[in-house]
């Protein structure tokens, strides 16, 4: 084998005495997809942020093409031909797609002024080449999360010359968009790029990986050919234990209809959406991103009440004009956008858990803090939420722990109809299994769950029935047992 294209050796990094990476090495060859796996907090993102100059390493070295590479900041990385698609979207909302793609390296005219025309043309070329249905002059703030992700990808592609890092790029993408991304990856690989791909999805790993590196607790526990390790082996290395069955078997739901939606509609978002949710049932919502699933959940939850149609709760029509009303009626909404409308980043876990149900622990306007602490402690223990101290702001916890705390918020509120929007997005495997067990427990106790998911195996494994939405319409509902991914996709696409 020739020289590696890029070599990171003995890289260590600590944050305030907390060792996140200890002497990790990673070698990338041209023409390869190197999948980096590990649970949340294992150090994957940190390692990649060091490579991209977002963080500086404490020790170790990075060599590119056989010579030392000093990365003082993102600019150096970019000049060296290394670019990255970040997990959290970092786009300037008030700028256009083209301006975002060329941010920091705007084309200029011969007299030194910005050349907006060339910029727009070149950006549109990048978008068109990869069949992204976007216009370069659109303001990014008007895009959906999935569309923004496409912009992120386009931005990285516009500059990636030697190494491209993707941190869970498909987390918010639809099936079709993901397929397009995989095609792009194959193309780049053929061109000789080295691609680092971070993902929690085993299916993607098996499909894409040439080589695999597994991190656990800041250390490299495996690195080698993808063919040399199987799924069980990867999981064992990642988690440090065996997980036999990811999806627990679900108890049968009762015939009692808890929630019925009749011909719900909201502007151009969705129309004519009707479904029933039974007691003890998990109803999966499949569809492409932008099919209107999240909008329906927002409608039911009272965030943006539907403009037409009827919602029946236990047979009685209800109309929630605010989330406060729907929460009081027993609803809870786990958002797909943890940072946007999920966590209260400055507040500790406890206060994040109790926030939706302060009335249940207060006397008039006065809170009972001991009551709160006791009930939250139980939930923290039950859901295995790990925080270094009870006063630590939730914004500093890992995504998986944040997600569990947000779930705990609705358990604290005693919600019995949960609207879960991408409940395991960006969550590591161990936590995923925990969330599935919790969902099982909720329905076994008589709760009902409406689960929106873009993860087809999850939909098939964790739903009783699957409703499929396509372009704002609910096209069909099918039993999950016996359904295949292809069947679901045929209706969704």
């Amino acid at each position, binding site marked *: 084998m020739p020289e590696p294209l890029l070599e990171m050796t003995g890289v260590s990094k600590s944050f305030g*005495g907390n060792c996140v990476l200890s002497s990790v090495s990673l070698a990338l060859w041209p023409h390869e997809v190197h999948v980096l796996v590990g649970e949340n907090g294992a150090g994957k993102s940190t390692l990649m942020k060091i490579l991209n100059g977002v963080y500086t390493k404490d020790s170790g070295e990075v060599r590119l093409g056989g010579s030392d590479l000093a990365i003082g900041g993102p600019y150096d990385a970019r000049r060296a031909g290394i670019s990255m698609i970040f997990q959290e979207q970092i786009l300037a909302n008030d700028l256009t797609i083209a301006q975002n793609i060329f941010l920091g390296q705007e084309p200029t005219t011969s007299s030194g002024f910005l050349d907006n025309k060339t910029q727009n043309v070149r950006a549109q070329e990048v978008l068109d080449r990869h069949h992204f249905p976007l216009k370069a002059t659109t303001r990014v703030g008007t895009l959906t999360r999935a569309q923004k992700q496409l912009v992120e990808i386009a931005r990285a592609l516009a500059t990636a010359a030697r190494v491209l890092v993707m941190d869970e790029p498909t987390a918010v993408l639809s099936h079709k968009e993901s397929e397009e991304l995989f095609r792009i990856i194959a193309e780049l690989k053929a061109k000789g790029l080295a691609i680092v791909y971070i993902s929690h999805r085993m299916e993607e790993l098996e499909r894409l990986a040439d080589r695999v590196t597994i991190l656990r607790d800041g250390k490299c526990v495996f690195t080698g050919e993808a063919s040399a390790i199987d799924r069980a082996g990867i999981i064992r290395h990642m988690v440090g234990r065996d997980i036999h069955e990811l999806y627990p078997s679900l108890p049968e739901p009762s015939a009692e209809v808890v929630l019925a939606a009749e011909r719900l509609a909201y502007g151009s978002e969705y129309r004519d959406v009707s479904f029933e949710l039974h007691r003890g049932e998990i109803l999966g919502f499949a569809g492409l991103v932008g099919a209107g699933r999240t909008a329906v959940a927002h409608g039911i939850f009272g965030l943006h009440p539907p403009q037409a149609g009827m919602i029946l709760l236990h047979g009685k029509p209800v109309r929630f004009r605010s989330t406060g009303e729907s929460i009081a009626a027993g609803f809870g909404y786990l958002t797909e956008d943890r940072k946007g*409308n999920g966590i209260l980043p*400055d507040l500790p876990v406890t206060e994040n858990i109790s926030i939706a149900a302060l009335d249940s622990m207060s006397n008039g306007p006065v809170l009972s803090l001991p009551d709160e602490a006791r009930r939250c402690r139980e939930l923290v223990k039950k859901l295995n939420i790990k925080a270094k101290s009870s006063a630590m702001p939730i914004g500093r916890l890992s995504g998986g722990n944040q997600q569990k705390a947000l779930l705990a918020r609705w358990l604290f509120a005693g919600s019995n109809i949960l609207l879960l929007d991408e409940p395991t997005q960006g969550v590591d495997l161990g936590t995923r299994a925990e969330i599935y067990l919790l969902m099982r427990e909720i329905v076994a106790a008589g709760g009902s769950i409406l689960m929106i998911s873009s993860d087809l195996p999850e939909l098939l494994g964790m739903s009783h029935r699957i409703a499929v939405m396509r372009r704002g319409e609910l096209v069909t509902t099918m039993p999950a047992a016996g359904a295949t991914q292809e069947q679901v996709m045929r209706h969704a696409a």
Partner: protein
Amino acid sequence: MRDLLKKFLPFATLIALFVGLAIASPYFLTVGNLSAVIRQTTVITIMAIGMTVVMVAGGIDLSVGSMVGLTGVCGTMLIAAHYPTWIALLGAILAGAVCGLANGAGVVGLKIPPFIATLGTMGIFRGLVLLITGGIPVADLTHNFGVLANGNVLGVIPVPLIFLIAVGILIYLVLKFTKLGRYSYAIGSNIEAARCSGIRIGLYTILIYALNGALTGLSGMIESARLVTGQPTAGDGYELRVIAAVVIGGGSLNGGQGTVVGTVIGALIMGLLSNGCNLLGISPFLQQIIIGAVIVLAVSFDELQRRRMA
């Protein structure tokens, strides 16, 4: 460990400042000087406590300086009309609450960013008080309501200190033990998440601004008692000193952060700095530079901490 450092740095700074001044100037530790410091800083401190709640909730109120003038004039006009002092005090507090309601309504109802909404009312309130008075101070007040600012309890404890302690304890309890307090942190930390948690954002935002207005009204009355006149121009520029006190005490313009204790320490640091400069004969021009530098240092230290922990 870092959290602890962050928590205690403002406090340590205050202590160091206190000890330093005690050593540097023989006049510093006299009853006369300390009570003067308290009388001078109480108004800003009480206002800053109100502003803390607003800033915790992610808002800001630039109109508080103008409110001091308006509420002070309202109060002194009641004094001039021979109402008892406590009625005048309530009148000023009520006038402040109404101003605060107007701010809250602007932010919530018209959906204007608080910076802009209160920039507008800052002009409106100041114009209003000048219009009411014709620019002439409410003077020749027979009442001895000056006791609100210049009086002593038990011979040595300045009356405004009693107000300050009462307000401090009240708002500390509100922030820590009431829904209003918890919701303030929630709204300031992530308003969309707060909305999805069923919090009535509009109602609480208006309450928060009204509370801030009421406390500013109290300060306005103390300020006019200090001057024993209703000055329509009173409080000019106070908004910036108030915001500075909150920020030095750990509050953030981004919301979600800030405590009563921190703010009081922040206000005291500013008060001691200017007192120390006076005692040591440092030019008032240099004073402004020193205080400006302290604000920048305090905030940059805070940012540095946050980045390191990210």
